[in-house]
């Protein structure tokens, strides 16, 4: 992994283009990042994926208004339209084939990507906010507060996380599903997604909190922090102006590696039937549907292979991008 990034000293000094200007460390890091071919390709792949995930529903919407031909196109690729063309193998009309209800699989994958990617990003975001605050406060306060907060993290850590999420999601659902159903069916539909996010956020911040606390403990004794104290700054000022900004580098790298982990969790839970509810789909639930259709007589390989392929390549790209970030920013690991 690390060997793909070879720090080029000439480039580091910014002398390759003849000028002798000095670059800021963050500029250097970005430059190292884009030099890493694997990471760069991954980022481009993710951008294209995100673009097509956004563009596809828009294109379908536009097609409905563009005459009878467009309407036919839109209805053929509507991810929720049930039709007679069941289990059509991949071909010119349906690039990834169709499923048990004759729905176009590629279209379903692209719509499912909304859920999978959203859950990944938001879940990592939740872990970022809780983890950074928890770890920073614990490390910063020290003493008994620190001990109490970190013991809590220890207890949560000893609980197998996926089990905790399963219990949490089913509990939340039991509490709220009746009430939300009374409010509106739309709310009920999205409630499941919300519970999923809450459950995933609730377990994914633990490692973040530990990392941040460790960083804060070492930052706390640094001269510039002491200087800030000496100048009469309050604890909030020191924490938010001096300590947290200095932790962010490590945090960003870890967040980048949390996104694929959360996506994987989501597909795991959706696979078990604890994630999004049909007709809403995510990559995990699509794979689960494909597995349900598995039988000894006919093999519908595309139902598993294509959602799986999207999931695997996305996870791969996210991992490469995360590794690239780590290699570019963490100077120690670039030896």
């Amino acid at each position: 992994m690390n060997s793909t990034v070879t720090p080029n000293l000439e480039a580091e000094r910014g002398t390759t283009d003849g000028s002798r200007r000095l670059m800021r460390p963050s500029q250097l890091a970005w430059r190292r990042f884009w030099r890493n071919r694997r990471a760069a390709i991954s980022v481009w792949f993710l951008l294209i994926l995100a673009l097509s995930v956004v563009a596809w529903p828009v294109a379908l919407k536009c097609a409905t208004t563009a005459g009878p031909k467009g309407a036919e196109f839109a209805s053929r690729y509507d991810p929720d339209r049930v039709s007679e063309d069941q289990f059509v193998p991949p071909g010119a009309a349906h690039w990834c084939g169709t499923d048990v209800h004759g729905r176009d699989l590629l279209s379903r994958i692209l719509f499912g990507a909304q859920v999978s990617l959203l859950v990944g990003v938001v879940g990592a975001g939740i872990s970022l906010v809780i983890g950074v605050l928890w770890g920073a406060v614990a490390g910063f306060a020290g003493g008994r507060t620190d001990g109490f907060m970190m013991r809590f993290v220890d207890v949560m850590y000893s609980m197998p996380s996926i089990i905790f999420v399963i219990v949490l999601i089913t509990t939340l659902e039991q509490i709220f599903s009746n009430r939300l159903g009374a409010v509106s069916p739309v709310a009920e539909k999205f409630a499941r997604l919300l519970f999923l996010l809450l459950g995933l956020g609730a377990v994914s911040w633990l490692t973040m909190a530990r990392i941040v606390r460790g960083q804060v403990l070492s930052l706390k004794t640094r001269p510039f922090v002491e200087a800030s104290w000496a100048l009469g700054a309050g604890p909030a000022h020191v924490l938010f102006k001096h300590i947290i900004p200095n932790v962010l580098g490590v945090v960003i790298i870890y967040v980048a590696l949390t996104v694929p982990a959360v996506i994987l969790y989501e597909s795991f839970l959706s696979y078990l039937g604890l994630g999004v509810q049909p007709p809403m789909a995510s990559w995990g639930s699509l794979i689960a549907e494909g597995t349900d259709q598995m039988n000894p007589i006919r093999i519908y390989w595309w139902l598993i292979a294509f959602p799986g392929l999207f999931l695997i390549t996305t996870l791969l790209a996210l991992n490469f991008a995360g590794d690239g970030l780590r290699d570019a920013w963490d100077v120690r690991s670039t030896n």
Partner: protein
Amino acid sequence: MYFIRRLLLLLPLLLAISFLAFMLVHLAPGGPFDRERTPASPEIERQIQAKYHLDQPLWKQYASYLGNLVRGDFGPSLKYRNHTVNDIIAQGLPVSLSLGALAFGFTLGVGLPLGFYTAVRRGRWEDHAGSFLAVLVVCVPGFILAPLLIMGFAIHWQWFPVALWASPWHAVLPTIALGLYFSGRVARLFHEGMLEVMQSAFITAARAKGLGETALLLKHATRLAILPVVSYSGPLLADLLTGSFVIESIFQIPGIGTALVNGSLNRDYTLVVGLVVLYAALLVFLNLVVDFFYVLLDRRVKHE
């Protein structure tokens, strides 16, 4: 001494976990008997509630639950009548544990050689290919691999049985599906560990003294480079045990993973809390064992 103290610390930890799980499960409205087909008369319902002590205040329920737990009694299952949670665990745990142990062996058997080889061949094409493989494998979760394995090796070529847990042949596909994902992680950890150790001074010294490369790698470097893998194997074992939920359900293996998922969907209070406590106890205990081995391997670590 250190380990005795750790063992004593286990008790409050398990207490906290059982409390958390108990409260979480009981927090939700609706009981385990709400989904019964025919609505029972109020009289019968009250009697069922009384039989399982569901009519008592929560703290009393928890106290009596704990009292039974101390005696090793996980209580009756609320969904599977005439079965206690102990029965379900006694049936499922050996299956889940042997699947986990097999997958653990497979993970190390694939991951360690891959990590070792890529580290030794550092910078060559074998390293690039192997490292790519290690990352790729980490991106293929079991629930994708398992159906593909079934379609290929069980349905198409018919080399292995499709499902169930009856003979050693039945264990092959589930073991691969469960273990392969983690072998990538082990490979990466071991790879990085090897690279780091190979740069340390004592390796240079040993090399300067004329020690052969094979002895150097196998005897001196491996012993330290394996430490990250050792400390990862605690969480790894936990992940293997919980990761087997999906594998168990795909291959219809009667382990405790399936029981837990069904239990929490059916609101089987005692089953869920019992299994959570069991998993947590296993996890904490395994971590302790791992730490013990860590100290054996690395004498520099002293636990005060």
